């Protein structure tokens, strides 16, 4: 139990929705969510297919603990071949949407083909249908949710949709659910847009059954006893992820102005303290509240408002409403990375990214690359339509976020993502990322473990695929870092991306805790060791997909700026990132050959041969 046992397969080309049984043998080996959906994707598509081709598939997947009483058990993932990267993509989101489709009786929704005209998918428990979306195409996420709620006279429908960014092929378009929760990275929203699927609306009135209710209640009660008093849980509730901004800036690892600097002088104007300062105009602070996803006892979500007198919202009443506030990565990407310390402009850009479905990290980092192109003269006013793309310009941020989201002006080029943009204008060295995906808010020169995690992440540069933070903050010495990256990559793959719970439980709950919950929920002999092995299997499965898609060991690297240009400030001042020792260690620990290919012995051990 805990898996519903049902998969909804939607063929957009044929216009059909069919139910099929879950492959329980695959669930036993790949658990759920990221792992299980990746198995289906690998089995069903050609890795060489163009991400925007109808032959690519888009899978919405829950985990066994999604929809249960497990703390933070509200997660789902979107798995596909990424439009930004061409690598396997898995973007994880919270809110309530994933829970709703699990309660409707589905473990996964597999979307295939391309609709001849825009449609949305309506799921009411076990009944699913495709409905015309002609009236929705061109609408933002926020308007789409309102329209569907009114059309079906059901405010309880939970909705995941794309905004205009996904429609017009922005390479880093994301899927947004519940107004401002994002399956954010790698361009999963662009794949959805290419399929002409505007939204999925779900009403689920069932429950989620568990294998041993008594044991499950005992397991989640024990987990709560560890999670509730945990200081990191309390901190995330109090200040969200935003607390990291001061830490990483003090450490000297905050990517600033396209990684040319690693300390941002304006950080005090956009940090967790700044959002609490009352404004002169209306006496309110930027941060007005917090919120939580389904079953979450952490509540890291922020609720914010923009100064009603700020230039960005002049004549735009919709942005004077409260909406999702800043978290760390967004403050990095829309603030430090573009050199902007205007809190309201950063908040405005965040609102628009949510409203139109764009990944804030990739948008900010791509705008940053464009600003460097502009500064060096590689592009000028003829290309930008007269918009002065200068580092630090709040006006440029506010203008370009709208243009990018709507596919207008120079926003079309920003929508390519930083790699394609920089190649187009003859400066590929300005791309700050890996495998086509832009860096998160940590500079690899200051954090050697993160440098390796970026280089080896299966979905391109990512801060969520491994957890080298404590090690990197403690020491720059390389001993043990490859092992930490391997172990935490496996844990995150199997536990936090495949079980249905949030990664923010990691400070309190270990693999044994989660295995206990899974065994009580599902039965079948789940142990911590089996979870770790499952994580390793998932990681290698993703690696095999990427190798078949054309990636090689040469892609497990970092930009020259990180490898060859010393950090100008901070704890790593004068140092560069060095993969020459870590990468071979990593390959050896993984059981891969010198070309980064899993050996026959490794594949056999993992059941992948």
């Amino acid at each position, binding site marked *: 139990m805990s898996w519903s046992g049902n998969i909804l397969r939607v063929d957009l080309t044929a216009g059909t929705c069919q139910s099929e049984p879950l492959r329980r043998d695959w669930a036993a080996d790949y658990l759920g969510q990221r792992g299980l959906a990746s198995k289906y994707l690998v089995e069903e598509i050609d890795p060489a297919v163009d991400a925007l081709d109808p032959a690519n598939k888009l899978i919405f997947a829950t985990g066994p603990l999604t929809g249960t009483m497990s703390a933070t058990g509200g997660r789902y993932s979107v798995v596909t071949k990424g439009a930004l990267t061409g690598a396997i993509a898995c973007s994880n989101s919270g809110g309530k949407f994933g829970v709703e489709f699990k309660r409707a009786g589905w473990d996964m929704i597999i979307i295939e083909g391309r609709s001849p005209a825009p449609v949305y998918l309506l799921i009411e428990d076990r009944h699913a249908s495709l409905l015309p979306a002609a009236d929705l195409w061109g609408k933002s996420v926020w308007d789409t949710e309102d329209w569907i709620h009114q059309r079906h006279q059901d405010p309880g429908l939970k909705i995941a949709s794309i905004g205009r960014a996904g429609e017009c092929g922005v390479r880093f378009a994301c899927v947004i659910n519940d107004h401002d929760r994002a399956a954010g990275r790698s361009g999963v929203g662009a794949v959805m847009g290419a399929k002409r699927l505007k939204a999925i609306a779900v009403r689920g009135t069932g429950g989620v059954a568990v294998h041993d209710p008594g044991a499950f209640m005992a397991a989640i009660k024990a987990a709560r006893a560890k999670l509730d*008093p945990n*200081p*990191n849980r309390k901190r995330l509730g109090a200040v969200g992820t935003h607390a*990291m901004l001061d*830490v990483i800036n003090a450490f000297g690892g905050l990517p600033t102005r396209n990684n040319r600097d690693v300390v941002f002088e304006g950080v005090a104007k956009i940090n967790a303290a700044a959002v609490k300062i009352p404004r002169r105009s209306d006496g309110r602070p930027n941060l007005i509240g917090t919120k939580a996803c389904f079953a979450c006892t952490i509540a890291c979500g922020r609720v914010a408002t923009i100064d009603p007198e700020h230039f960005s919202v002049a004549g735009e009443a919709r942005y004077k409403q409260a909406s999702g506030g800043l978290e*760390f*990565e967004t403050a990095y990407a829309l603030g430090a990375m573009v050199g902007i310390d205007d809190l309201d402009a950063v908040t405005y850009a965040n609102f628009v990214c949510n409203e139109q479905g764009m990944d804030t990290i990739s948008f900010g980092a791509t705008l940053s690359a464009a600003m460097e192109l502009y500064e060096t003269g590689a592009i000028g006013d003829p290309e930008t339509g007269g918009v002065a793309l200068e580092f630090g310009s709040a006006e440029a941020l506010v203008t370009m976020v709208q243009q990018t989201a709507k596919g207008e002006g120079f926003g079309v080029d920003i929508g390519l993502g930083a790699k394609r943009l920089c190649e187009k204008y003859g400066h590929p060295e300005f791309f700050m990322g890996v495998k086509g995906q832009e860096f998160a808010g940590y500079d690899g020169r200051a954090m050697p473990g993160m440098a390796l995690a970026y280089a080896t992440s299966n979905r391109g540069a990512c801060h969520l695929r491994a957890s080298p933070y404590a090690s990197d*903050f403690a020491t720059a010495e390389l001993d043990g870092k490859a092992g930490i990256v391997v172990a935490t990559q496996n844990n995150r793959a199997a536990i936090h991306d495949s079980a249905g719970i949030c990664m923010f439980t990691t400070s309190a709950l270990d693999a044994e805790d989660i295995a206990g919950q899974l065994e009580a929920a599902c039965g079948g002999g789940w142990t911590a060791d089996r979870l770790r092995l499952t994580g390793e299997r998932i990681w290698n499965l993703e690696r095999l997909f990427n190798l078949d898609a054309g990636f090689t060991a040469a892609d497990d690297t970092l930009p020259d700026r990180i490898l060859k240009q010393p950090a100008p400030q901070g704890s790593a001042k004068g140092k560069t990132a060095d993969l020459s020792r870590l990468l071979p260690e990593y390959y050896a620990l993984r059981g891969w050959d010198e070309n980064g290919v899993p050996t026959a012995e490794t594949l056999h051990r993992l059941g992948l041969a």
Partner: protein
Amino acid sequence: MRVGVELIAIAPRHGRRLLSLELDDGATADDLLEGLDLPDDESYMTLVNGYAVAPGRRATTRLADGDKVIVFPPLKGG
């Protein structure tokens, strides 16, 4: 000797606090942390004059007059 201390993201306020502390000559980074009376339910990371000092080396890291020490918990990204 006098050292400057910056506390970041530490309970109960979770914000930034700047302190100026008088320490005995020869005091180590460990001595400083013990004197700060921080919540004991988590570990802490330290930067001395901008450079990371691993927890295992604090006991032998002697501070000097005018040093700047930053203390923060080991946050994880997200």
